[in-house]
């Protein structure tokens, strides 16, 4: 080192606090948000209950009894009552979380991967490729999402697998659009030009410089879609296009219990309450994640 830069070095002071990565900062702000932590706790509780359902559920989710039909909440041995076939509601709600969460999260995950890939390619390459991808995606936008999900599920037939396919197709367009707009912003920043000036190819630039900056906003958006996915999936089950009886699933339970709405309104509302709780927790949590990530550093 020459003398002059060394003299310069003395004037340069580093920040006093220990260096933290961006995600460490996001995590710190998230932990400080009490509402987000409560929502996260509820979600974790429901997920754990669903995973360990066979160990904690008091009864068999499939076996009912004609003499115990539609017992009210608080019945001895059946704390949340029984359904129209005399099956324990608590057990079925715990087991129902397995399928409901599965078809809430898996389509969004699929769409996250496919939609981000499409959006990043469209945004980064631009021009005619962007035009081709984004206009094709706009075609799917022309249909309301519920209608599109029903149409695809109806065409493919009922079943969990087909529900997941139809919901994935429904969620790809909005995710791709968010990814495309963020990528377009990032692509025009100088550090992408600097990377290109370093001689890097497009693939390397996308991998090192674009994805890291695009994934965050897209991920936040995707978490808000989980609740939409659960509600749509419940809707498909309700219409008989999703899960088939006697599988416990919240949307399907809501459907079959609707006949009991006058005799046992509280019991009939329980699956809806679960759907509501999970989706609002997901929404509030993704909101908190968004504001934790939004902070201008």
């Amino acid at each position, binding site marked *: 080192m020459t003398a002059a*830069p060394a003299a310069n070095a003395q*004037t340069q002071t580093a*920040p006093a606090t220990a*260096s933290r*990565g*961006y995600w460490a900062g996001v995590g710190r702000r998230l932990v400080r948000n009490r509402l987000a932590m409560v929502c996260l706790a509820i979600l974790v509780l429901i997920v754990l209950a669903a995973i360990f359902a066979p160990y904690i559920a008091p009864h068999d989710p499939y076996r009912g009894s004609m003499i115990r039909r539609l017992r009210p909440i608080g019945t001895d041995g059946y704390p949340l009552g029984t359904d129209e076939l005399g099956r324990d509601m608590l057990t079925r709600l715990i087991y129902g979380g397995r399928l409901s969460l599965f078809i809430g999260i898996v389509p969004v995950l699929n769409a996250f991967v496919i939609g981000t890939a499409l959006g990043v390619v469209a945004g980064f390459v631009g021009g005619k490729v962007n035009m081709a991808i984004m206009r094709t995606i706009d075609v799917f936008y022309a249909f309301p999402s519920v209608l599109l999900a029903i149409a695809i599920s109806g065409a493919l037939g009922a079943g969990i697998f087909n529900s997941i396919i139809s919901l994935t197709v429904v969620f790809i367009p909005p995710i791709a659009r968010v990814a495309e707009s963020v990528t377009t912003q990032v692509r025009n920043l100088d550090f992408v*030009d*600097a990377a290109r000036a*370093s001689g890097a190819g497009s693939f390397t630039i996308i991998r090192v410089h674009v994805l*890291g900056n695009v994934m965050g906003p897209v991920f936040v958006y995707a978490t808000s879609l989980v609740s939409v996915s659960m509600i749509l999936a419940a809707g498909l089950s309700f219409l008989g296009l999703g899960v088939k009886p006697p599988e416990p699933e919240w949307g399907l339970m809501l459907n079959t219990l609707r006949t009991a709405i006058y005799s046992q309104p509280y019991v009939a509302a329980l699956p809806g309450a679960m759907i509501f709780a999970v989706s609002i927790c997901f929404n509030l949590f993704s909101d908190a994640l968004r504001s934790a990530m939004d902070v201008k550093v």
Partner: protein
Amino acid sequence: MLKPAEDRGGPAQPLLTVRNLVKHFPVRGGVLGRTTAVVQAVDGVDFDVAKGETLGIVGESGCGKSTTARLLIRLIEPDAGEVLFDGQALGEVDGGLTLSELRRQTQMVFQDSFASLNPRLTIEDTIAFGPKVHGLADKDARARARDLLGKVGLNPDLFGRRYPHELSGGQRQRVNIARALALAPRLVLLDESVSALDKSVEAQVLNLLQDLKAEFGLTYVFISHDLNVVRYMSDRVMVMYLGRVAEIGPVEELYANPRHPYTRALLSAMPSMDPDRRTQEAPIAGDPPNPINPPSGCRFHTRCPFAEDVCGKAVPALTATKADPAHRVACHMIDAASGHSKAGSLA
């Protein structure tokens, strides 16, 4: 380890030879995206950059300074014209320079120190990125990054693992300089690199740039709108106006004897530290004309106090002055045969 490329043509051959460089940006509009207008960002620019010198480029916003820099490093493709790097043209055919090699030998420092650093990468990763792209192992690239951090006056132990938002503007610009040097370039394009910094920090960074130039034997193209800074940094200065060269010459000669009416107006607009040296020339009025439909002939004639009929009709050629052949001016008042009533008066 990356080493600077070998000198080819000897010291007499310019490092950069630019001939008739042209870049027009189409303005698309309408339903079918037809070209409705053309922005003539750079329109026939000629200059050389000698080895080891600093060429300053000055001009108003939108005169094509930054476009010229981006053309030199091929971030945008020129429409026409020739750029020779140490006598070699870009081309995949034999004897030509590959794009990757051109970009290794030419690097750029951008104006916005924040936008030019990836917020998700540590300083060390940012600097090591280029060497890794050029095939250095991760360990060697990191060692190089830490070495360069020391060279730009940042302690690698304190700054290497930090993120850009934790640094001040001056520190970030030092990182950008280190990133540009990571590939051992011969030519560094400094595009308004110090313009966004505080004056005191700016002075430190300018001195750092001078030190690095001497240490690594660099050649600079220094773009700025700050005439004092350009004078301090440059060996020669090129004045651009609406995509063309108005005047080019050695720095002291050009600042002492500006010939082009635009250069004179520009220099007289420069605040002087000396109250006895009051502004002599009338300031130029108005904004530069729209580069979408630039004026015909000499592009400055719409604002020039000496404009005559010939100025709107013929494009003045860059002509050497009698006093100094290296000092060249594009004005009809230089050329005795131009037909201007003051023709030859400035020569």
